[in-house]
């Protein structure tokens, strides 16, 4: 009799491949890629030194400064702050002392860690990828199990190339149908969070599927997976397909020759079996997704751009108080038309939307137009290579002519650790991923949206339906 293997999800398969042992419900999993940046790693390296430990697999460890780097052209001499300088210097020293892969700030390949991982071919299907940053979920777009870890775990991975984990539950988010005009990957991912809430995915790994997801480019898929964490999930995944292979092929650290063929053969087995079990399932129709913006201080505060600022009374339980607080912080009143909300600043960039396709979308909207007078509009490419490509394609010129400030790559105003910050009560249309209080600067007010929508807001000076441009 033939023994049938148990049906497994994509997450189950990756988990099984990396499982070293399970004892008392606690598992040790093997890590393929460890991405490191300057903010969450100094204490981990310090821990290694104190214990006299080495980095277990330096070739699988990749470091790049991104969170704290200045985005001005004089950044090699002007660090923004003395503490920032020390943090960069510390990463530099740690990378060299421990012999790990490193893209220094003066390297054209430097950029946001989640942009350069895929760009350099470190991110491959079926891998386990961790980083001391919650947006590590981005790499899930390749069918890799990728998630953020804390600094103690960074130290643990550095020392052992393994991570202590408990297996998460499986959650499926299926988006089927055809996306409407002006609707992008960002609108999909924000709409999902709006529907499930910021804790909707807690304890789960989300697999995004359905033909609307399949229709996205790899860059779009990265945008979707990037915000899995805002939905509370440990990680987001999309099964690899031909588009994935095409994206990966020829990248500097992707396999070549025989190894490539062997890898492709394996990667083609990376999908959820048809009858695999999901603990939670969410279904969305692409036709029901509109260009959206956030109105509050939680990424779940999502509404179609055609809508109105809600009243706290529309909510229940503890969300009533939270909504009240959000509206007060955001300086908005219930019933206000979202499209009447005027902005002071526009931020285009981040690991969510700092890639070349994002910049192309922005160019489409702003080419031949001008940023509304008085608006501070900033573009921060996700990496040196994205910046270079945008300059070669003429995007940089169009954007500069329109009045955008064209910056050096980094995380910048997404988390505002460097001097790129909002002023109190300054309102920003942002392509980043978090609209928390103070996220982009103390008292700053963030509305999250797609690059096209943020570009439209730059032109009109208010939240704008991109379909009207």
């Amino acid at each position: 009799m033939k023994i049938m293997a148990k049906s497994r999800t994509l997450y189950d398969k990756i988990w099984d491949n990396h499982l070293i042992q399970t004892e008392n419900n606690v598992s040790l999993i093997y890590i393929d890629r460890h991405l490191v940046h300057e903010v969450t790693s100094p204490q981990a390296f310090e821990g290694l030194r104190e214990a006299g430990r080495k980095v277990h697999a330096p070739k699988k460890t990749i470091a790049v400064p991104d969170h704290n780097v200045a985005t001005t052209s004089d950044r090699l001499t002007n660090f923004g702050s003395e503490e920032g300088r020390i943090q960069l210097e510390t990463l530099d020293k740690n990378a060299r002392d421990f012999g790990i892969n490193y893209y220094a700030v003066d390297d054209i390949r430097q950029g946001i860690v989640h942009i350069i991982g895929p760009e350099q071919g470190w991110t491959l299907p079926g891998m386990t990828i961790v980083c001391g940053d919650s947006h590590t979920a981005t790499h899930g777009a390749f069918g890799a199990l990728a998630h953020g870890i804390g600094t103690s775990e960074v130290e643990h991975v550095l020392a052992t190339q393994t991570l202590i984990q408990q297996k998460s539950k499986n959650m499926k988010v299926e988006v089927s149908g055809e996306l409407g005009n002006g609707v992008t990957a960002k609108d999909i991912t924000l709409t999902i969070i709006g529907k499930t809430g910021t804790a909707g995915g807690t304890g789960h790994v989300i697999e995004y599927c359905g033909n609307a997801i399949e229709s996205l480019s790899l860059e779009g898929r990265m945008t979707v997976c990037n915000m899995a964490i805002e939905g509370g999930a440990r990680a987001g995944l999309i099964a690899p397909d031909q588009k994935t292979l095409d994206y990966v092929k020829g990248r500097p650290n992707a396999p070549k020759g025989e190894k490539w063929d062997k890898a492709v053969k394996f990667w083609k087995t990376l999908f959820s079996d048809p009858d695999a079990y999901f603990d939670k399932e969410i279904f969305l129709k692409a036709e029901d997704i509109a260009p959206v913006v956030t109105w509050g201080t939680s990424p779940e505060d999502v509404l179609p751009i055609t809508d109105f600022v809600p009243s706290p009374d529309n909510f229940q339980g503890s969300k009533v108080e939270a909504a009240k607080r959000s509206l007060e912080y955001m300086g908005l009143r219930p019933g206000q038309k979202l499209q009447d909300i005027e902005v002071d600043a526009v931020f285009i960039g981040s690991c969510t939307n700092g890639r070349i396709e994002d910049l192309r979308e922005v160019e489409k909207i702003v080419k031949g137009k001008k940023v509304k007078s008085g608006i501070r509009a900033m573009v921060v490419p996700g990496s040196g290579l994205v910046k270079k490509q945008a300059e070669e394609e003429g995007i940089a010129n169009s954007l500069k002519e329109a009045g955008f400030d064209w910056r050096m790559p980094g995380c910048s105003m997404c988390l505002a650790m460097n001097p790129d910050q909002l002023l109190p009560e300054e309102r920003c249309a942002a392509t980043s991923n978090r609209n928390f209080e103070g996220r982009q600067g103390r008292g700053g007010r963030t509305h999250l949206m797609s690059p096209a929508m943020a570009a439209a807001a730059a032109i009109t000076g208010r939240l704008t339906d991109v379909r009207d441009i």
Partner: protein
Amino acid sequence: MEKFNILEGIAAPMPLINIDTDMLIPKQFLKTIKRTGLGENLFFEMRYDQNGNEIKDFILNKDHYSKASIIVGGANFGCGSSREHAPWALKDFGIKCIISTSFADIFFNNCFKNGILPIIVSEDLHQILLQDAEMETTSIMKIDLENQKIFRNNGNQLDFEVDEFKKYCLLNGLDDIGLTLKSANKISSFEKEYSDKFSWS
């Protein structure tokens, strides 16, 4: 890591939902390369005004609650970034236990790595504990990790669940890396087999 067994202390009520890591410790304090000294900036923007003066209404600025070692917090506590600076700041301030109906995943893990016990309770228990915390006279609680009990000020005992392995590590103040390295042979034989099979990785 410091051992955690019995904690008796003041519980501060913070019923706001989605208390995120940017609230716990804003970005300007992430430039440090140390784990210590973050406590004075815990909840920075809620705790101090633009001029750096304490905001009197903020719970942890009130005389009684400034000595809190427990927070009874709203749902989805610790959402947002993976910054371990959040538990470092809590610990440095003196918080050793957080009670909520739910926690964000990474924050939850980060707490255990720093000797902080996050306890998940039902909505009903949460309401009771929140009410206790709100009154200074009933805000002192005792947490017994070994026996998985919360002792209310009126003597009532409430049970809570905790993962066995995490409990064991907290009770004994164990360092994960040391534990994992006990399996070093297993890791290296796995690694060998793995790199033969997935030669491109």
